[in-house]
């Protein structure tokens, strides 16, 4: 039986949406208020999927999970300008970038999904779940 284990971490970071290949006017028209530098209190939900280790009853070591998220998500991104770290900081791309950074740090196939609550209204996840 497969279990999903999710841990949520928070990052308070700034970003803006822009395409460097477009002019200022084009960027303003395309992204509206998001072209201005602003910040969010993101909630990043990282989901692992796997079976239980028979003896420990765990999908994955709790402390190791926390350390990986601290060193890969919170440490490098909390309080930072995300545009200095990622080429595209639209949240759908951010979820993908964080997923790809985390993937090799877990046993093969264990990382299932990264979900980001950008605001109370906006949520993004990668990858899309297969039907």
């Amino acid at each position, binding site marked *: 039986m497969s279990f999903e284990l999710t*841990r949520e971490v928070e990052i308070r970071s700034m970003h803006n949406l822009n395409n460097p290949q477009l002019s200022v006017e084009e960027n303003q028209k395309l992204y509206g208020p998001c072209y201005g530098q602003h910040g969010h209190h993101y909630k990043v939900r990282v989901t692992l999927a796997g079976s239980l280790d028979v003896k420990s009853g765990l999908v994955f070591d709790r402390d190791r999970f926390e350390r990986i998220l601290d060193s890969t998500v919170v440490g490098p991104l909390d309080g930072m300008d995300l545009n200095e770290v990622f080429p595209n900081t639209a949240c759908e791309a951010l979820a993908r970038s964080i997923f790809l950074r985390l993937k090799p740090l877990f046993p093969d196939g264990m990382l299932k999904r990264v979900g980001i609550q950008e605001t109370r209204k906006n949520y993004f996840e990668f990858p899309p779940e297969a039907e």
Partner: protein
Amino acid sequence: MSQDRSVVARRLMFSSAHFYKQEKFSVEENERTFGLCYTPHGHGHNYVLEAFVEGVIDPKTRLVMNLSDLDQVMKSAAKPLEHHHLNFDVPEFKTLVPTTENIALYLRNKLIEGLAKIDPKVRLHRIRLFETDDLWVEVRA
């Protein structure tokens, strides 16, 4: 997918004490595997259980299931855990480590049993068990 089927979800809170300890492990193995969760006396959580139930929207009641029935099933499932020390008071966790995963599995089995008794037309779809706001387990039924 039938358009007559839908999913309802209900939440229940309960509080329990536990520690993580595998009797077959040495002290060092327990410390290494369970970290802070391996404590001599235990610690507590306010668990939040979410049960998702799938079924046909009944043409007469216009419901998938009566929510107070679902409440009853959930409360009975969690009753042996509510305000108990899982390692000492619950027979299943004398040998099984009461991790969030194993508690979720325990509740899933109890919910499937309870639902079958009270309303055979519905089935458990999945459950989510929150140990804290920022850590939870989901099991498909």
